[in-house]
């Protein structure tokens, strides 16, 4: 971290990246919306992907990140 660590933003001190912080803020704004717009905006915050880290040229355990609430894979 830089020399200005003391003046650093509180969320960075807590170990968050800017991306995590800004996405969290976006989620809060979406949660504050009223109904017809809320459902529409909700679709913009779902995440689904799977990843595997490799070691020595071999894939390790596969991790699935899924915030669709069980509908992942059925939609397309």
């Amino acid at each position, binding site marked *: 971290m830089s020399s200005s660590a003391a003046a650093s933003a509180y969320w960075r001190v807590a170990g968050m990246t800017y991306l995590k912080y800004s996405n969290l803020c976006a989620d809060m704004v979406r949660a504050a919306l009223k109904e017809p717009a809320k459902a529409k905006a909700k679709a913009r915050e779902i995440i689904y992907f799977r990843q595997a880290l490799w070691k020595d040229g071999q894939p390790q355990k596969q991790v699935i990140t899924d915030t669709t609430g069980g509908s992942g894979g059925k939609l*397309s």
Partner: protein
Amino acid sequence: MSLRRAGLALLRQQGAPLVESLSATTQQAQGAVREAVEGCSRGVSTLAVKQRMKSVGNIQKITKAMKMVAASKMRSATAATENSRGIVQPFLRMLGDMPDTQGAKAVFVPVTSDKGLCGGINSTVCKYTRATVKAVRDGAAAADSGEAAPEMMLVVMGEKGRAQLQRDMRDNIYGTVADTNKVKITFPEASAIAEELLKTEYDTARILYNRFVSAINQKPTIATVLSPDALERAAAEGGAMDSYELEGPDRPEMLMDLAEFQLAATLYNSMMENNCSEQSSRMSAMENSTKNAGEMLGKLTLTYNRTRQASITTELIEIISGATALAG
């Protein structure tokens, strides 16, 4: 799918004898067809051609349906892609594009599709990845700054790219990401992947993808994202950013935020572009195969009719010559 499984279960129940008898039957059938074709026995020969015609016709129907599906998916993807361009263009204007930046740790992110039957777009990305890795390695060797050779890491997105790149660059793969397209691509999704990328602590990240130009044109593209330190170095060397005045006390921190956001935004855009390119490429590939199947069907129909006509002519000649012999 359930049909195939049911068949497998049946095989497992009945054990090996059935499998053997099955393969024997297939061999018999194949032998019969071969005899028929070689011996030009009329009835069976036309039967083989007729079966072939039917299967070609079915394939044509399938490719046509796939083309329709790809076309409609492309239409919605085009709009989304064009919207997503607005998020990266300011970055390009402000920071410039610096694909030749050197760094101790270079990360390459080839963006490919999960499904096949979409023309050559995945092979193109893999080819460009290999070429870029080689160029960066050679460039570092030529610069000879006394530092160790840069570390190359691949983070492959999409099943098809993984299948192609694990053959010769297995040792460079840091991780793979797939199924990003299963639900609609969202910015949080791109951010989540970008955070995984940040864990590599790269100096330069190069994202390789197919940029969607038009329905018949996709261009392989490299987008370069620099780490905050590399960004600072580039600015010191007279990058485009030097013409901006940065307010506030925390220039390094702002650059850090900016670099992170740039990575996510670039990744989001490249995933969108690649998805759109995939659909349009699939559309034209399926259009071609539908056309080819049509041509093949035409040729087969011609062969079929010719054989039929030949046999009728032969029979007629036989009858007429018989009748003439009787009369004479």
